[in-house]
């Protein structure tokens, strides 16, 4: 459990020597509590205090990171149950599964296609994070061959799926030096051997159980063997069971600082609906069976949305954006600086092939309707943005187009911007090309 500033202060030397850069030990303690400084800045803190503080400052959900040549995917380190309480930090890794009984060509084709996959969402390039190789063959050699195939087709992190230690061992040996994979996984009968393998190969290890008590038992035993990078799998196909398991595990870790369940959760959702739930409800690694762009794209977008910091909506720089080389006859289109709004509008204008000046007003990162409701996108602000630019000298005729949702502002804007022809555009960005072609 995180300590308060006062509790930390009691563990410090209390000499106010100032060597940490703060005027008093109490001030330093407050900064420590806010996680704004490192304890190492204090030269005199005792070993005993260091140990106590380290334990208390360990994250309630361990950060587990899977690494391979140039790639890393992290899960854990979460601090809240609801995103509005602070934010969700580490986006769950999206892994695509292949099975070692598929033909080598099929395995390679699936992995290559998913590895190459990139989709652009509001200017961010989204990709899948890695692959899970499942041993259905029961044959260590076949599994090892599949792992090698995966490594030829992609350098992204891997999850090795089998309960049989001899198969996992063969798979681990087929990996490249220096990478850390995730073994899936350990259960009541195999955990000891699996823990030894994880230790030897510096791999992370998932424990599999439908009930939380068994999961907690297993992580404790495995930690006792020196393996700390663990994940827990609720081992269920039911939505209700997964939701309950994940919620309780997260609560135990955050509210009770219960270390045996303080690990990222790995799920193998049975379909898109289950994968949707996994992303919003606490999974750290999500393994999907199929690679279908019509599923992967919305999953990646959902992940991006849920893991957006609620305090900081993604904004774009306010100002004038030139699209398709506008000349003096091009219209001035007005929108807000919320990134999703900006990208929707900019993409449509660009796609239309018609030139325009896009005036992005500072609406504190809100969408058109939200900003308007909050009083951050009104005629006065729009007029100020237009006047603050040099558009008046650049365009003729002077035409400014309002988003259809704020048609109500047109009268006021006419008063604020004498000499401008105020038009009302469509409500939705998707209708902009038609508007540019037909109405202007």
């Amino acid at each position: 459990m995180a300590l308060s500033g006062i509790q930390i202060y009691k563990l410090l030397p209390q000499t106010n020597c100032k060597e940490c850069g703060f005027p008093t030990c109490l001030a330093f303690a407050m900064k420590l509590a806010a996680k704004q400084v490192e304890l190492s800045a204090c030269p005199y803190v005792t070993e005993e205090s260091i140990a106590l503080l380290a334990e208390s400052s360990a994250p309630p959900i361990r950060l587990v990171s899977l690494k391979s040549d140039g790639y890393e995917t992290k899960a854990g380190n979460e601090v809240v149950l609801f995103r509005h309480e602070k934010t969700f930090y580490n986006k769950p890794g999206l892994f695509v599964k292949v099975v070692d009984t598929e033909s080598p060509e099929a395995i390679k084709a699936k992995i290559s296609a998913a590895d190459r996959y990139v989709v652009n969402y509001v200017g961010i390039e989204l990709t899948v994070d890695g692959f899970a190789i499942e041993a259905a063959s029961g044959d260590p050699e076949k599994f090892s061959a599949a792992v090698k195939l995966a490594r030829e087709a992609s350098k992204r992190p891997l999850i090795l799926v089998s309960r049989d230690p001899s198969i996992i061992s063969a798979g681990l040996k087929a990996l490249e030096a220096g990478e850390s994979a995730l073994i899936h996984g350990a259960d009541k009968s195999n955990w000891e051997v699996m823990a030894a393998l994880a230790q030897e190969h510096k791999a992370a290890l998932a424990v599999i159980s439908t009930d939380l008590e068994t999961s907690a038992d297993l992580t404790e035993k495995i930690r006792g063997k020196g393996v700390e990078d663990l994940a827990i799998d609720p081992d269920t196909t039911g939505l209700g069971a997964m939701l309950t398991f994940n919620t309780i595990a997260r609560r135990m870790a955050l509210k009770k600082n219960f270390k045996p369940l303080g690990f990222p959760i790995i799920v193998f959702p049975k379909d898109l609906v289950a994968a949707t739930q996994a992303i919003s409800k606490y999974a750290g690694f999500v393994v999907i069976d199929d690679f279908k762009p019509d599923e992967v794209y919305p999953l990646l977008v959902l992940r991006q949305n849920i893991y957006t910091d609620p305090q900081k909506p993604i904004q774009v720089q306010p100002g004038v954006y030139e699209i398709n080389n506008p000349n003096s006859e091009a219209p001035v289109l007005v929108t807000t600086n919320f990134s999703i709004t900006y990208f929707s509008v900019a993409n449509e204008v660009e796609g239309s092939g018609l030139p325009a000046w896009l005036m992005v007003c500072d609406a504190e990162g809100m969408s058109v309707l939200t900003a308007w409701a909050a009083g951050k996108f009104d005629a006065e602000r729009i007029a100020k943005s237009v006047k603050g630019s040099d558009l008046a000298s650049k365009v003729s005729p002077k035409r400014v187009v309002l988003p259809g949702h704020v048609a109500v502002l047109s009268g006021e804007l006419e008063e604020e911007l004498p000499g401008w022809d105020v038009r009302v555009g469509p409500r939705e960005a998707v209708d902009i090309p038609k508007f540019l072609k037909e109405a202007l």
Partner: protein
Amino acid sequence: MPIEIPKDKWPGSVRQVVLGATAAEGGTRTSKVVVGGETCMPFMHFEGAIPNRPVVALEIRDRRPDDWSPLLVKTWENVIDDPAAWAKAAEEVGADAIQLTLSLTDSAGQPMSPETAVATVKAVLQASGLPLIVFGPGQSEVDNLLLVAVAEATKGERLALGICEDKNYRTIVATAMANDHVITARSPMDVNLAKQLNILISDMGLPLDRVIMDPTTGALGYGIEYGYSVMERLRLAALQGDAMTQLPMLVTPGYEAWKTKESKVGEGVPESWGDWLQRAINWETMTAIALLEAGANILVLRHPESLKQVEAAIQDLMTAPDMVSV
């Protein structure tokens, strides 16, 4: 290792709201929908009661819509010009309720008249016994004109009337009170604005068990995270005992998802978007599932396949999991 599960003990609960009245209750509905009543966060069966399952309504229009995705038009092509047949088709594919949206103009481009609106609503009520939610076109003056006429002509049916916003709530609340209907109160993605509207409505004397709130949402990729968190915050506030947030929530993932480019446009989009129809259905389904888990009680959808998937998810989530330690 024995685990003591941390259970949240909530002092508050969500109000129960009934949509639709049967013959015995003064209406003509053959089924009712009861939503709300829960005493815990969504699907946390181990710490509270969830007496009523969330429901799915399908949206239909009073005439062929001008701006719907061609995919939807194709899906409903056989019934799209006949609201009564459309309602019947929606019932046949498994909807729990019908949500009828009235248009601003008729198919000839003339302003929609109250008489036409009433005739349409009556035809829909005749064709399907499901509870009915009626939304106006979304312009407050026209909404008032049409919805008052509809409310009076259907007295006792316990329709849900919307969209009731801060601009026009008075008229719609008054007619709902006079004619025994329910209202849906919409506020723009903000906890305090939602509360404020509920207070205004309650001050007019409409009992809160006849109010459903629509906190507004965005589609996946288009601001869903705002609506999602507002819903979670509203539900937490309700359970903590804030009376003015203790209302069931209605959201319109169908409307939101189907206006996105991902659903509307099939050509000239990136290849990485995948198959158009699948993508569009996935967009609607995923928007709905995320909102369902944030506390939605009524989800209004447009496509029968999304309806099927969301209904299956609700059934799964309403079964209390048989977990040893729970």
